[in-house]
């Protein structure tokens, strides 16, 4: 009787340990991905890290359903994106209440050299152009720009067909080029 109970308790401990070990592996391989997804929306390190942490905490609570690697990454990416958008909107509302101009774009390190200034301006323009894209196109171009994901990987993360990703990527690039050219002529 006692042996059975000990064996059962041992199995439970082992199962929990397995779960914790698997989650640790997912955390290590996906932490940068989650952070960058959040950063692409928020452009602030502290906020992005906070949102990514929150997403991991939620993922852990549902980890028994998300043990499969691809499923976990896709769920994590979408959850992080949603939470980052929510945080972004909350930040905008807060800044509007405080009467501060809602400038949430990256403020790169101030430099005095001409090349660095140009680079900063270019980065600002690119962020602005990305911000003006429709959400679906923006999500695709951001995921494609993170860690060199190819079409198949982006499709897996978004749970959409490859062709959808391809067409969205085409549209996103086209609109980005148009907006950048418009900004350059201004």
């Amino acid at each position, binding site marked *: 009787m006692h042996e059975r109970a000990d064996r059962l308790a041992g199995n439970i401990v082992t199962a929990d340990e397995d*779960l914790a070990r698997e989650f640790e592996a997912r955390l290590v391989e996906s932490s940068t991905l989650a952070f960058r997804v959040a950063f692409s929306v928020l452009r602030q390190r502290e906020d992005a890290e906070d949102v990514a942490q929150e997403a991991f905490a939620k993922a852990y609570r549902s980890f028994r359903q998300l043990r499969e690697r691809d499923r976990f990454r896709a769920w994590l990416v979408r959850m992080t994106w949603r939470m980052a958008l929510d945080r972004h909107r909350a930040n905008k509302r807060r800044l509007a209440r405080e009467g501060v101009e809602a400038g949430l774009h990256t403020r790169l390190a101030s430099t005095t050299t001409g090349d660095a200034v140009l680079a900063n301006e270019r980065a600002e323009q690119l962020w602005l152009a*990305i911000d003006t894209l429709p959400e679906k196109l923006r999500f695709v171009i951001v995921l494609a720009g993170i860690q060199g994901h*190819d079409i198949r990987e982006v499709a897996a993360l978004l749970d959409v067909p490859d062709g959808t990703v391809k067409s969205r990527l085409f549209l996103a690039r086209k609109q980005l080029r148009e907006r950048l050219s418009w900004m350059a002529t201004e």
Partner: protein
Amino acid sequence: MDGHRMNGRSERTGPTGVDDAALDREIESLLGAEPSPEFVARVRARVAEGPEPGQWWMSWVLAAGAVAVVIVAVMAWPSREPVSFVREPVQTARVEAVEPVVPPVVAAQTPARSQPSTPGRKSGVVAAATERRIDIDLPEVVIADNEVKTFAALVASLRQSRFDAPVPAAPDAVTRLEIKELPPVEPLEIEPIVKVAALQSEGERP
């Protein structure tokens, strides 16, 4: 991830001279931010604060139980609703205070008639009335004055144990009932209906 770039990318060049490859490189450099070295450790700490995985269904079980309890309560409620016990003056208490002028039932339904009592008595009635009130939802019964008086006299005589009203004796099973012969009824004659308007000419119509 695996090193090779987006295989759906064309070498298209836009009006600004930016081709897709350059655009992708720019976006990649924008998104190349790295989290702080303590990030993973902070995630571990945050995860450790939360509940264990797999306990999510407990909250669902609790929520379902609460919903079931609410449903049962809502379904059981209407069966008790029609029987509403609101306290109302008990007739016996009232009779003692006002006796023997107005019978209890009548007093409850004709408050104006119970007022002739003295203020002291009235307060006694109110005090007794507020003690026990049972509100049974019955239709109002209107009773004629002479009936009220008769009933009051009956109650008073009963209370004084001097009930001497003649009560017909119960019919004896042996004695045969006397059946009186009813008077004859004349047959009813109904005159035929005559359409007067049809018989009259148009000129004679008023």
